[in-house]
């Protein structure tokens, strides 16, 4: 079993399943803060998917997208928490 087949049949299904599970929490989360951490987890899983796909496809260039994703996840969470604090006042 080659590494490409292993990635296709094991790694990507596991990552897809975890995105689906955190999307369920994003859909039904009882509070806005739950949805924010679910969104943060989805973006972090997206970084993992990009890393796995760059191994699978042999393209190291995709890792730059992962760097941008890490930046956007941090900025998004900070902006959401500022907005929620401001809204309460």
């Amino acid at each position: 079993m080659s590494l490409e087949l292993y990635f296709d049949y094991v790694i990507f299904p596991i990552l897809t399943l975890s995105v689906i599970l955190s999307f369920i929490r994003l859909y039904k989360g009882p509070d806005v803060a739950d949805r924010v951490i679910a969104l943060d987890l989805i973006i972090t899983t997206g970084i993992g998917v990009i890393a796995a796909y760059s191994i699978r496809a042999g393209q190291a260039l995709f890792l730059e997208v992962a760097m941008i994703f890490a930046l956007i996840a941090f900025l998004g969470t900070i902006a959401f928490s500022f907005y929620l604090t401001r809204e309460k006042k």
Partner: protein
Amino acid sequence: MMMDIFIAFLSTLGAVAILFASIGILRMPDFYLRLSVTVKAATMGVGVLLIAAAIVFSDTEVTAKVIAIILFLLLTAPVAAHMIGRTGYRSGISLWKDSWIDDLDGKYKKEDKEL
């Protein structure tokens, strides 16, 4: 061949850590428990997957990029988790019914939630 098995082991470890984080965010009963499960496990999983990518390519440029991403994640994930946890506490999300210790109880003023 040995290298392939090592890469497969590392990426399986990362993917399973991310899967545990998402199971935790779905099954934990409380916002704070969800936050505490999610951030650590997901950061570890992504870090291990990126290390696997660095080993596969074994290139200085890719390794520098991977180290930059991992350092950035390790710096920003706790800060973001702290910020959103404090926001959740100040906006009055209640604890799970079986949580019996709340260190911040009485530290915030009731009306405007300032220290």
